[in-house]
């Protein structure tokens, strides 16, 4: 009897909170809502240390926080969410820690494919962004499988940056652009189309801005409107350097597992404040 009362009270509380949250999002939606929010998930290890949790528990707590934030974003109407899950620089950490994170990622990716996961609940399309060749075989296979399984979803998108740095992304885009131009010139040589070859060879603009953008890993999404980095550090750490040139940067002091609805609301309010100026610039440039 008491158990069912407790359960009822719990459900009532839960639905009240959910109702208030949806009402808050309705109010926010009167103004412009960001299309794309990016998150740097910083502070998991500090969180574990702070609460005397075991090694790696901070990352697990971080994963729970990620699920909540994703839910809030999609409920609010944000279409694209990008997260900095693992940087190429993070491979420098202790091998045991790297292995732990890789194992956890494998576990969570497999979880994404399950029926009741957030991916299916909100119709989320999944992309794994980065130099996936640097990952070990099973994580890469799982990532590709997850991307394929969710490829029919179209309501929202999550971009998970693993083995990613912005400088690596730009170098990769430059390599691909050069290879593409090189192949084009080769095929023209084969067709003996000398005039066009000369034109292409002599032009100092062998590759253009559009070519580089096309070959970026992040080319599947528009530029982020807000970049949130938790734990109070204000630096980009080689994340989305190209895409955040006019993006609002927000660094709350909270560690990543402590991130909550209030931080998201604050970020969106700040975005709404500068939106008119950024729109004016975009129209004029």
């Amino acid at each position, binding site marked *: 009897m008491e158990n069912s009362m407790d359960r009822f009270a719990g459900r009532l509380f839960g639905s009240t909170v959910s109702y208030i949250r949806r009402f808050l999002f309705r109010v926010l939606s009167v103004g412009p809502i960001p299309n794309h929010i990016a998150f740097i998930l910083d502070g998991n290890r500090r969180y574990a240390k702070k609460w005397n949790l075991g090694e790696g528990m901070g990352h697990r707590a971080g994963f729970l926080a990620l699920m909540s934030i994703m839910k809030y974003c999609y409920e609010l109407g944000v279409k694209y969410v990008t997260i900095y899950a693992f940087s190429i620089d993070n491979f420098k*950490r202790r091998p045991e820690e790297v292995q732990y994170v890789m194992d956890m990622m494998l576990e969570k990716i497999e979880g994404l494919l399950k029926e009741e996961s957030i991916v299916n609940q909100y119709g989320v399309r999944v992309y794994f962004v980065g130099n996936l060749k640097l990952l070990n075989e099973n994580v890469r296979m799982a990532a590709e499988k997850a991307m394929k399984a969710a490829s029919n979803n179209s309501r929202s998108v999550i971009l998970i940056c693993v083995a990613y740095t912005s400088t690596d992304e730009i170098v990769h885009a*430059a390599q691909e652009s050069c290879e593409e131009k090189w192949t084009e010139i080769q095929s023209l040589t084969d067709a003996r189309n000398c005039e066009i070859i000369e034109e292409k060879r002599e032009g100092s603009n062998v590759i253009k801005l559009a070519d580089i953008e096309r070959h970026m890993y992040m080319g599947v999404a528009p530029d982020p409107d807000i970049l949130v980095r938790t734990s109070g*550090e204000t630096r980009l750490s080689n994340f989305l350097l*190209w895409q955040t*040139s006019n993006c609002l*940067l927000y660094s709350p002091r909270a560690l990543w597992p402590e991130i909550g609805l209030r931080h998201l609301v604050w970020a969106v309010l700040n975005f709404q404040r500068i939106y008119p100026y950024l729109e004016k610039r975009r129209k004029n440039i």
Partner: protein
Amino acid sequence: MTILPLHLHFSLTRSPVKPHSLPHAPRLKLTQHARPQVVAGPPENSVEINGTYPAGVSGQLPSGLRRELMPSHVAVIMDGNRRWARMRGLPIGSGYEAGAQALRRIVELCCEWGIRVLTVFVFSSDNWFRPKVETDLLMDLFERVLKYELQQFERENVRVSLIGDTTKLPKSLQELLANSVGTAQKNSRLHLIMAVNYSGQNDVVQACQKIAVKVNDGLIKPNDINKFLVEKELETNCTDYPHPDLLVRTSGELRISNFLLWQLAYTELYFTNSLWPDFGEDEFVEALFSFQKRQRRYGGRNS
């Protein structure tokens, strides 16, 4: 080193505000510091007046700052000049003039405190959307201030470089810039890099284009392209410290606005609500203090 009083003579517009009467522009005299000497440096009576300090040796640091944690390269986005003028009911030109003074102060402080490189965002390629009257005023002011300052810089051993696309600037300014920059002074106290009509994205694109030309000419294969090759072709290759350690943006705006893009990968960002003309020694000390407290891990682990 003394600072000569700033007499910015304006032949075209008569500004109602003279530099010395601006409320937030204290005259800085480096030969007379009231501050307690905390860090070992040359004693006060041996401070060179004519800027012939050998490179790397600098004056006293304010209390609280540690010499070994000073950044080598500081980048600044000088935002808030127009707001500053509007708040005081002054024409926008006065805001920019006050901004020029603030820049002068910061250059002096960088020289004194041993910061090796200072990059300033003078004009972005995205700023052309402002009214033509304003951009003309800005170009005009820049030319006048530069003409005066270049002699000062030479005397004070400050090396000046330019990044950005100068072809869209007025002809007279282009000529002035061409004559002034590029004289490589080996033992300069400070390397001042001015970003004029600069865009971080365009910088990366032009670096990739230069590499593409090399690939085209068969000098390198596409697979050989790596981040070191790209860095060598960026416009900041004129300095030994191309990556800023600290970026300061004034006026409370929290964005990079297409400034140094590749170079800011691991830079500590510092945002302050002060408007640029109000950014003086105290604000700069606060920024440096905040920088020195940060733990820079570069993706690795601290412990």
